[in-house]
């Protein structure tokens, strides 16, 4: 049997990778992908703790996190498309000034 701490360490490493991606990469799509990595790390934590407690609550919360992640990915990508139409660039630094 696998100790709970192993799952938590995997989840922590995944979350760190996601955070690093959000901070270090200068490409909208990669930033959104890193956010998805972070959400998945959190899902793993929920399921692991839920299994430890013996109920289905962990899985239910994961269900809601997945739904919210889907909604957020859809809206985020729509915003990226809208931004691309204005500046033809996927670099967040191209949108650093308020004037067009």
């Amino acid at each position, binding site marked *: 049997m696998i*100790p709970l*701490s*192993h799952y938590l360490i995997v989840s922590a490493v995944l979350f760190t990778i996601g955070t690093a991606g959000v901070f270090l990469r200068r490409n909208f799509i990669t930033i959104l992908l890193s956010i998805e990595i972070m959400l998945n790390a959190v899902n793993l934590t929920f399921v692991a703790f839920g299994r430890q407690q013996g109920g289905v609550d962990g899985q239910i919360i994961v269900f809601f996190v997945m739904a919210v992640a889907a909604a957020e990915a859809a809206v985020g990508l729509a915003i990226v498309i809208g931004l691309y139409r204005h500046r033809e660039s996927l670099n967040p630094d191209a949108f650093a000034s308020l004037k067009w």
Partner: protein
Amino acid sequence: MPETLVFYLLSGLAIGASAIVIGQRNPMYSVMMLIASFGALAGLYVQLDAPFVAVAQIIIYAGAIMVLFLFVVMLLNASRENAAEWDRSHPLRQPAVVRFGGLLALLLVVQLAWALLSARGLAGPVGARGGAETVSSVRVLGRVLFTDYVFAFEATSILILVAMVGAVVLARREGEGS
């Protein structure tokens, strides 16, 4: 023993694929590597006696959200040549900032490791209390979802409706009719 081996394989795949996602210049490859990472996570959920969550992960994340990402990458023709140049011209890449940030990241990792290793109750194996049958039963999941969490369920459906309308409105070209 084979259980531990499978766990190490799957978690290694998940972590390795995620590392490639953030390191890869070509967004198309990033998306494909993330799909691999999601598949590995689904395997981990199966090991945690959560088959419904594993299948939902494949259907929702790997089967729908990633297709959406793929469409956007293809639509915008996200170029791969500029990625390296953009990362180099990162405004936060000055040496002092990098050193300070590195120190903070190291502090974060040390804190996480200390927290995980010194907490009590985490050393026992997952599932020591048994109950694999109840936890993996979809019937129980459905019952709890529609009785204890029904308000969150209905709110989520409204959220998805709002997101759908929002995505359609935001991605429309300006000046289009109704």
